[in-house]
């Protein structure tokens, strides 16, 4: 009996999940309005952001922004419990595709008036604004918007005598085939032409980029459109390229693809700006190019980060946060942020020449126009991307793309209807 009780207690305790967190809100104090700002910028970009915040605090006396650095995952896991306990931030930055999920729960303040009235915010690149818009409402401002681009290993290109970066899919596959080397003929190349992940791709954007290039999309006007003939053709094209030419291993995820490129085992890789520093650290002489054009378009899914004002903020804090946003998007600060973060300028009126001191930013700025926001305003993004991943992974493993995309269509329709 005693054993039973003890073990049952153990089972109950072990089986329980604690969903908790509660603390009294702090009373507002006199003096300047204090605003807490959570973000996950931890590299050189973090230093620049801290500097921008310090400069903003020094530039006026009404508002003090205090930053709290947390990893993006921690922000995602703790934001809602913190807000419900009124212990959260007034400004929070997060990966843009997560923002509609929170906006849908009422966690963000509508910034429509700021967009209408503020001359700095009005200059933001329209595609980046779409990224932080849901149901016609702007609930945030972008802090980063960059299309995925191809990083290529110059040394391997030179060794193969390739001087021109491919401009179309057919050229891309041809070049990738040339760069694929199976020295011992065992069917497993020692060097791949391309690292083409088939699931959990970088910022979930590789396959959307390819679908756009083929003339398709995932969700359009709130409707699932993943099973379009264009997408079936795109998936058939790439799965057969991988199957017949072995240009890429299968079963790769985005991190695996990063590693394959940085270990010199893949000549090309579709990635984000951070691949520049990873490549340098790995001693790889790299170049950056736009994703080659598909039969219908040259387009790339954009990696985005945004920041919003949380529902926890009172009127004074909302006003202070909007003042900070306006400062953040002034021409000088936006340029400083672009150079420091390594991402293209967020204002459409800042030319590539203004950031040419950073060649990576300049290269990315030149291809910035190809960027499209990923699933803007789609609150069921988790389910949509999961359905897409299943289809792409199974297709590269040899299943029929048409059937797979039809299955994905049904899953996405169900997710959007929820």
């Amino acid at each position, binding site marked *: 009996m005693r054993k039973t009780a003890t073990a049952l207690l153990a089972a109950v305790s072990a*089986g329980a999940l*604690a*969903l908790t967190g509660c603390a009294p809100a702090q009373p507002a104090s006199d003096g300047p309005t204090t605003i807490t700002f959570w973000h996950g910028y931890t590299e050189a970009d973090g230093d620049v952001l801290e500097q921008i915040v310090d400069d903003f605090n020094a530039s006026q006396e009404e508002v003090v922004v205090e930053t709290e650095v947390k990893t993006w995952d921690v922000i*995602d896991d703790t934001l809602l419990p913190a807000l419900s306990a009124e212990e959260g931030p007034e400004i929070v930055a997060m990966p843009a595709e997560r923002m509609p999920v929170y906006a849908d729960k009422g966690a963000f303040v509508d910034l429509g008036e700021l967009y209408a009235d503020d001359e700095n915010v009005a200059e933001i690149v329209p595609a980046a604004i779409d990224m932080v818009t849901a149901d016609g409402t702007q609930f945030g401002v972008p802090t980063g918007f960059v299309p995925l681009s191809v990083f290529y290993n110059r040394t391997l290109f030179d060794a193969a005598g390739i001087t021109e970066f491919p401009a179309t899919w057919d050229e891309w596959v041809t070049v990738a085939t040339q760069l694929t080397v199976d020295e011992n003929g065992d069917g497993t190349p020692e060097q791949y032409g391309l690292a083409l992940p088939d699931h959990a791709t970088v910022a979930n954007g590789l396959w959307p980029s390819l679908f756009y290039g083929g003339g398709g999309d995932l969700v359009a006007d709130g409707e699932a459109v993943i099973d379009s003939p264009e997408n079936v053709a795109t998936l058939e094209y790439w799965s057969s390229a991988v199957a017949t030419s072995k240009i890429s291993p299968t079963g790769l995820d985005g991190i695996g693809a990063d590693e394959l490129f940085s270990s010199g085992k893949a000549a090309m890789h579709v990635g984000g700006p951070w691949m520049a520093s990873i490549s340098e650290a790995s001693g790889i002489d790299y170049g950056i190019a736009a994703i080659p054009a598909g039969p219908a378009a040259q387009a790339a899914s954009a990696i985005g980060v945004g920041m919003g004002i949380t529902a926890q903020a009172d009127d004074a804090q909302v006003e202070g946060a909007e003042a900070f946003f306006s400062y953040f998007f002034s021409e000088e600060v936006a340029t400083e942020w672009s150079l420091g973060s390594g991402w293209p300028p967020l204002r459409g009126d800042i030319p590539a020449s203004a950031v040419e001191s950073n060649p990576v930013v300049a290269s990315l700025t030149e291809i910035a126009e190809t960027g499209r926001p990923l699933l803007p305003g789609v609150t069921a993004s988790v389910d949509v991307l*999961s359905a897409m991943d299943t289809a792409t992974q199974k297709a590269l493993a040899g299943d029929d793309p048409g059937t797979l995309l039809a299955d994905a269509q049904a899953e996405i329709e169900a997710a959007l209807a929820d």
Partner: protein
Amino acid sequence: MSTTLHKPAARYRPPAPLGGRGAGPRRSRSSLLALLFLAPALVLLGAFVAWPMLSAFRLSFTDSSGFGRESWVGFENYATVFTDPAVLRALGNTGLYATLFTPTAVIVALALALALNHPRLPLRGAFRTALFLPFVVSLAVAAFAWSYLLDPQIGLLNYWLRGAGLQLGNVLQDPALAMPTVALVAVWKNFGFYMVIFLAGLQEIPASLREAAVVDGANAWQRFVHITLPMLSNTFAFVLIIALIAALQAFDQIYVMTGGGPFGSTQTIVMEIYESGFRELELGFASALSYVLLAITLLLSLVQFVFFGRREQDTQ
């Protein structure tokens, strides 16, 4: 040389069973004292286990996201648990994982404990430490290490096998092999803990029993079946239950190694809870799913209690 005076033999009173009948004022005073000592732990458990559990139970009947408005939805979340294909698949996956992990871990742990308990084994301490070591390694570190070892492109294991002319392939991305692989890594990681518990149990068995059996001509297998196993039944039940609970709550190692993939084939119930609660912000549904998992865990534990309780009675 003791100088204690021998008292006349007192009437023998068997020790009162725990939770036996309460008595007189002295008993209640000592109960109060016991409660006082227990208070810090009870307060902590109340605040961090009982209260969250009750809150989660309430949440499971709402559509709460943990923030802002919430409304009462009755049993809707519980109905969804048993109709949502993704959840049903996760339940199946968890069952498969528990089936693969629990018996394997228990049998491996028992076999190695028996080997280590052998009096003539040299370097027993060193072996015990070596076998216990994986359990001490941080779970995330172990999961990452195995992911790298098994990687088809840069993995050491594949590299060695290629040298021997073999191909392991991409086991973590193969829907048929991913689950057995993560279960095997979990066995490697955890058997040392169960083994130490078995060792403690084995050392509790009086040597005289074994010696008597040897005198009676029992061979090693007979000694194992008729002495070791019955005497270990409590330990065995305990290990089986904690291993099963660990299997039902599998999350972190699988999350690191496969993220639930490929195509959701290693997605477990706790992963589903995590994603519902913290990715899709459906805390109400996540709470309902947590309670379903709790019910399953309790049910399976009870079945084991009944089974082992019977066995214990039979033995006695």
